[in-house]
Structure formats: structure tokens, C-alpha cells
């Protein structure tokens, strides 16, 4: 077969190229069909998937700790994961709001523990049917502040709400 000087590869005739393309397409199509049918033989096994998800959950539990207002029994901390989960649930509970990502500014902490959050920034998505976006933002702010107060006795962190996406619902 002739050689392409640019790639150092053989130049193939049209019939060979067509046959090659058909074989590649067949393998890809068959694999896709099996995957679409939920066939486990072309995916991770159930054991591996379960192991992976368990590892992720274990990993999530070992995140940083955050200082909270002391109680009568003494100082206490919570995990940042728990804090994020609390905020996410508070946002999701507001009709037409969907939490995307939350970030926190912390006061200085001691050692490896983060200080109390003094600013919470909520990035959210709003339903396209929301009649009043500023009102939705305010409802989210109130919901997060209430959750922080009720669940953590964490009063008056600044709460910024950014509506950065819209979703159908």
C-alpha cells in the first residue's frame, strides 16, 4: 500500500475504508445498545459501584469542622458538610428555588477548625414560572437565616443570594 509522507501511515482504498468504518460503527453501536439496555456486562459491576459510593460517603464525612456558637455545655463544632446540607435543604424547601452551590466566609478559627461563618453565599436556580425573582431571593435569604438560627443557634451571618440559573419545573 502507498504511504502518506505526512503521517507515515498507509493510504487505504475506498472499499477498505468503508469496511473499517462499518466494523467500528458496529462495535460502538452494539456496545451502546447493551449499555442502554442496562446490561451490566458493559458497565461497572454492582459490587464496584457500591464500593465506590460507600467510599465517597466515607470521604464526605471526613471534611473540615466549623466552630459554632457555644452552648451551656461548652464549645462545639459541626462539619462543613452538615452546614452545607442544612443550607441546601433550606434553599430547596423554598418553592421555585433550587440550591446549586454554597460558599462560606469564616472568621479565624483555632487550629484546623474553621471559625464561625460570617457570610453565606448561595448560588441558586429559579424556576421559570417564578413571578418575582427579588421576592424569591428574599425568601431564600429568610429560609437560610431561619435554618441557621433554629438548627445551629447561628445568628445573623450575612447571606448573599445569587440567582444564576433558571430551570423548568
Amino acid at each position, binding site marked *: 500500500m502507498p504511504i502518506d509522507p505526512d*503521517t507515515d*501511515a498507509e493510504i487505504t482504498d475506498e472499499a477498505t475504508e468503508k469496511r473499517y468504518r462499518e466494523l467500528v460503527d*458496529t*462495535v460502538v453501536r452494539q456496545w451502546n445498545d447493551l449499555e442502554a439496555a442496562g*446490561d451490566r*456486562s458493559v*458497565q461497572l459491576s454492582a459490587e464496584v459501584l457500591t464500593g*465506590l459510593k460507600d467510599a465517597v460517603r466515607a470521604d464526605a464525612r471526613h471534611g473540615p469542622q466549623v466552630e459554632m456558637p457555644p452552648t451551656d455545655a461548652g464549645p462545639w463544632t459541626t462539619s462543613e458538610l452538615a452546614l452545607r*446540607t442544612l443550607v441546601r435543604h433550606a434553599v430547596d424547601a423554598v418553592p421555585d428555588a433550587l440550591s446549586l*452551590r454554597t460558599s462560606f466566609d469564616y472568621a479565624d478559627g483555632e487550629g484546623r477548625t474553621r471559625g464561625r461563618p460570617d457570610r453565606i453565599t448561595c448560588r441558586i436556580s429559579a424556576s421559570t414560572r417564578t413571578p418575582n425573582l427579588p421576592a424569591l431571593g428574599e425568601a431564600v435569604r429568610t429560609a437560610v437565616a431561619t435554618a441557621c438560627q433554629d438548627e445551629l443557634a447561628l445568628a445573623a451571618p450575612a447571606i448573599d443570594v445569587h440567582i444564576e440559573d433558571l430551570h423548568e419545573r
Partner: protein
Amino acid sequence: MNPVAAAELRTLVLRAQDGEVEAFERLVDLTQGRLFRTAFMLLGDRQDAEDTVQESLLLAWRRLHMLEKPDAFGGWLTRICVRRATDLGRQRARRATDVTATEDLEKLPYAAGAAPAAYGTAASGTTGATAYGTSPEHTAIVDAQLGALTRVLGSIDPDLRACWVLREIDGLTYDEIARTLAITEPTVRGRLARARSLIIRRMDEWR
């Protein structure tokens, strides 16, 4: 990856970055099949491919906060997986060179005559190179084609193989392949052409 709206994917990535484990688990469900196919085609071994995908997804979870653009999640994850697979492939190739004389060739990935690796193992609930085999629900033709393709891929250089798999199986653009493998686009074109040429030469056993 299963078809899923870009907006839904973006939401899942952001929520996973926020620490929502359920969102990441959904991303795992959506991406693992595609990643497994890529890793399997690169490594030719079910267990190695499973290990690679599992490690890649766990690493992705740990580094997810570093991903600045949620829309780039798919390409970012593919890069992690392909790099791990190619690293593993190179390590294994070095080991195989050292010990082939005393190994059972049938148990080596990509060994001539090895059964089609992706099939049967999960369906039967077992894993591992020695558990390869055909599964009753799959046709002999499918097995034969994949098995032959696996052998052909195993016979070409890992760098050529990676370019070929990303282009012909995953459908990535030259630019995406270049970024994934950290090489230039002309290098991608050259490797791809040589890989095609080698595969076409051995195509008859793949039919």
C-alpha cells in the same frame, strides 16, 4: 454518558461540588458506562478497567471543588480516567516485558486468544481476569468482534491506541484528544493515522 440535559448535568455538578453525595452518585451513574468503555478499550482487561474507573471517580469527587466550569465536567473526568488508564497500561507493559516468560499468557490482558473481556463477568457476579468468558445472552458474533478488536488494539502501541479509542470509540475531536492526552493536534493526527493503518491491516481477524 447517558443523554441528559446540559442544564441538569450542570446542576448536578454544582450540587456535588456543594457536597451533596446524592448528586455525585447520580453523576457516577450517568458517566460510569462511558468511562468503563474507554478504560476497557485502553486496557483490554475488565478488572483493570473497573479499578481505573473506580479510582478516577473517587479522585474526581476529591478534586471536584477545583473544577471551575461545571460544563467542563465530562471532559475533565475523561482526562482523569484516560491518564490513569494510560499510566496503568504503561506500567503493565513494562511488567509484562519483564515477566512474560514465566506468566501464563492466557491470563495477561490483550494476550493472543484471550476471550472477549467485557462480557460475562459482571453478569455472573464475578470479576477478574480469570473470570473472562462469554455470557449466554450475548451473541457469538458480538463476542467475536469485540474479542478480535481487543486483540488488535492490544497489538498496537499504547499511545496510538489511546488516540484511536478517543477518536473512533468516544468520538472526541482532535482538539479534545490533544487536551486529554496533553499532546499537540498534529501529533494526534499522526498517531491516529498510524493506528488506523495498523488496525486496518489486521482487520480481517476482527470480522
